[in-house]
């Protein structure tokens, strides 16, 4: 096996975001080799430099990003500093984390045609190539679809197909499944496995979720604070589990808990009552209702885990709780108020809402202002607002960013600001839409621990999440939605018998075997590549 990727003494400093700011050192003295054909996992806590390393392997660093690089990266014999990203792309495919910002065409087929057009591939050969690529990622039949109408897992598979269309030898994936539900995650990994069986391909993947890495990777790189702490194989997950966990990487040894609801006894006045709620989106042309005759009564002091596949209506339900959406039919009563008759601004005193994407809820010019916005809008006096903001900044360790614009902070800190700015309002009800997506294990635990303490003091919490371990650990109730219907609602059964039911068929973790034969995509099709 020959060396495909050689990295020597790699360092990277991001140019400061503001004038007079400090350069951020993101990678320090990184050395490693990757043999041809291997599957390499890059793991590490939030902010460890996983994305930055992926950018360096794709040539974005040093060619397009602002900053200073030291050391060398050689891929397939090319020193990345000497070639443009486009030239490097003949050998390296790159898939980013956010599907929305890397699918820039108006249809799936254009997305895959784009790299072929750039290489001057014969238009008559393109149609077959597009079909081949879509078959490879299991997306046959989606050619004409608009990328934004696809699910997250489907979008990432299209992005992988587009990256592979030019037949690179290396595929770099930067947390491609961070925003996906468990099924979407599985789809992406199945597609990758299928690709690796049909062709020689070196895969380098940054990933938060170590479960799949532990199963597939030949080599694991463990980054902390921009330094390569370990370079080994998957034995790392068993032998050095304590070290990984202390750094914030979750190592899942115990099986995924089964979430089973048992009926709850309802006595007393519910704090949230949804009666026969139906909601249909006016736009989008989708005829089926996003919520269909949903009736749920949530008691004060519950911690409800709201689960279900992407598109099952979780966010739609959550948005009814503070009036961002109004029911077409039925009533929603929250904290004694009929939501239909109150504005979102009025509901804000009763319901705190943390949105899925922290970037969509940060709009002030300093962290203190951001955290103070809610309490001030509730009409609290200046002294109280100031105290609340102080309290939150202490809780989330944000004092050093007090005067900094929150939009310029790292992902983990932006999440913290978003959560702090809602908690500062001290509402009796909290609604959290995937509050820990994209966070490492340690940060997620800290966030959820804070929420749990508030819950113990009487706050009612409704949390959307795909993380079944977190649901099992923190929530008292579970509400499972499926296609806009309530599939399950009740107390979470935490008894032993619920976890080990008899005669339960084990869920297969292997990728689904492909029954159809793969057309091996020959490298000869590509005229333009020739012998450059």
């Amino acid at each position: 096996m020959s060396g495909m990727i050689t990295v020597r003494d790699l360092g990277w400093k991001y140019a400061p975001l503001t004038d007079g700011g400090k350069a951020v050192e993101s990678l320090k003295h990184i050395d490693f080799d990757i043999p041809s054909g291997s599957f390499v996992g890059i793991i590490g806590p939030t902010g460890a430099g996983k994305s930055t390393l992926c950018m360096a392997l794709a040539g974005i660093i040093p060619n397009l990003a602002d900053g200073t690089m030291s050391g060398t990266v050689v891929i397939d014999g090319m020193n990345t500093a000497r070639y443009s990203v486009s030239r490097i792309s003949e050998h390296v495919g790159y898939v980013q984390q956010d599907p929305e910002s890397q699918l820039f065409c108006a249809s799936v087929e254009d997305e895959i045609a784009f790299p072929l057009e750039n290489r001057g591939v014969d238009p008559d050969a393109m149609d077959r190539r597009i079909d081949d690529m879509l078959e490879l990622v299991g997306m046959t039949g989606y050619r004409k679809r608009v990328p934004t109408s696809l699910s997250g897992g489907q979008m990432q598979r299209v992005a992988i197909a587009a990256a592979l269309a030019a037949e690179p030898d290396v595929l770099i994936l930067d947390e491609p499944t961070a925003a996906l539900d468990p099924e979407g995650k599985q789809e992406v990994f199945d597609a990758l496995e299928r690709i690796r069986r049909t062709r020689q391909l070196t895969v380098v993947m940054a990933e938060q979720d170590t479960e799949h890495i532990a199963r597939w990777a030949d080599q694991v790189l463990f980054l902390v604070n921009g330094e390569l702490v370990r370079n080994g194989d998957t034995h790392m997950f068993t032998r050095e589990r304590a070290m990984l966990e202390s750094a914030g990487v979750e190592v899942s040894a115990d099986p995924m808990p089964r979430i089973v609801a048992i009926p709850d006894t309802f006595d007393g006045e519910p704090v949230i009552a949804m009666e026969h709620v139906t909601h249909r989106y006016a736009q989008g042309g989708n005829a089926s209702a996003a919520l269909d005759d949903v009736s749920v009564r949530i008691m004060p002091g519950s911690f409800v885990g709201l689960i279900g596949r992407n598109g099952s209506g979780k966010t739609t339900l959550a948005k009814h709780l503070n009036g961002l959406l109004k029911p077409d039919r039925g009533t929603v009563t929250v904290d004694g108020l009929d939501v239909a008759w109150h504005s979102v601004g009025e509901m804000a005193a009763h319901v705190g809402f943390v949105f899925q994407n922290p970037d969509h809820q940060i709009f002030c010019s300093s962290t203190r202002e951001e955290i103070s916005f809610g309490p001030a809008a509730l009409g609290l006096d200046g002294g109280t607002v100031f105290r609340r903001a102080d309290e939150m900044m202490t809780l989330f360790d944000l004092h050093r960013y007090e005067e900094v614009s929150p939009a310029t902070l790292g992902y983990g800190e932006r999440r913290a600001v978003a959560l702090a700015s809602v908690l500062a309002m001290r509402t009796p009800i909290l609604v959290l839409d995937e509050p820990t997506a994209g966070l490492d294990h340690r940060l997620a635990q800290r966030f959820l621990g804070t929420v749990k303490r508030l819950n113990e003091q009487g706050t009612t919490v409704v949390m959307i999440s795909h993380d079944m371990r977190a649901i099992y650990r923190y929530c008292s109730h579970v509400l499972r939605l499926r296609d806009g219907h309530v599939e399950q609602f009740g107390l979470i059964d935490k008894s032993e018998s619920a976890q080990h039911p008899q005669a339960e068929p084990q869920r297969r973790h292997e990728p689904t075997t492909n029954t159809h034969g793969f057309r091996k995509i020959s490298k000869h099709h590509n005229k333009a590549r020739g012998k450059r």
Partner: protein
Amino acid sequence: MDSDLYVPGDGWLHRADPRVKFLISVAMLVLCLIWRNWAFIAVMLVIEHVMLITDRVPMERIAWVWKILALIIVLIVVLWPIFDTSGTHVLLRWGWLRLTRENLLMAAVMGLRIPALGFACFITLFTTSQPRLIRGLVALGIPYKAGLTLATALRYIPVFFSIFQSVSAAQRARGLDLNGKVTATGRKRNVFVRIVDRFKSYLPIIIAVLIRAYKMSQSVGWAMESRGLNLGARRTYHVKLRMRAQDWMILLITVIAIVCSVWLMVWLL
């Protein structure tokens, strides 16, 4: 609005060659801009609607155009006679306000012109998919990157619109009540305070959207580059353009219509 400007479909305008559609749109834009005749602009507006309806563009999309232009149209019609006090046939005089037959007519022309110009653009934008738009522009000699930039910008308009909406929702969810008649502290708010508050609340949203747009455009740029945008090889195109007999027909009709309009314009002067 949760989709592209392009309306998927298979009407006659959809099938028409993009170059012909560019000519139709540009001709309509220019004619409506240089000729200040309310009857001509009104006829143009009718023709534009007939074209879109016969192409089976859904009524909701046409209504959507009127909705986004409504505010501008109303503002122009109301403000024009206030600031333009020219004209000899005075109908009403009240202080500095001077309504004349001429300035009222101009207000009507301006009010009609806005939707006429808008629909002239949407004849192309509603019916031309992104790759055909780029292909058409390139076939007319416009550099590929300029075409790609334009098409990508159009593609991301709805994305930024939805970001704007979610940031605005986040503000309200944190207690900003723009429509309430009293503040959280119980103070009464009059109409003017409410309008000023609303515009003040837009400023941080726009900044948040710009930051997000900057990050996103950077990422899109990287994605394009890492798929070989600047490779320097001779580009090929997946979409093939061919002028069919129908396209030549449409082209001919368009040219005749342009000549007739210009002749009419000169003759009437």
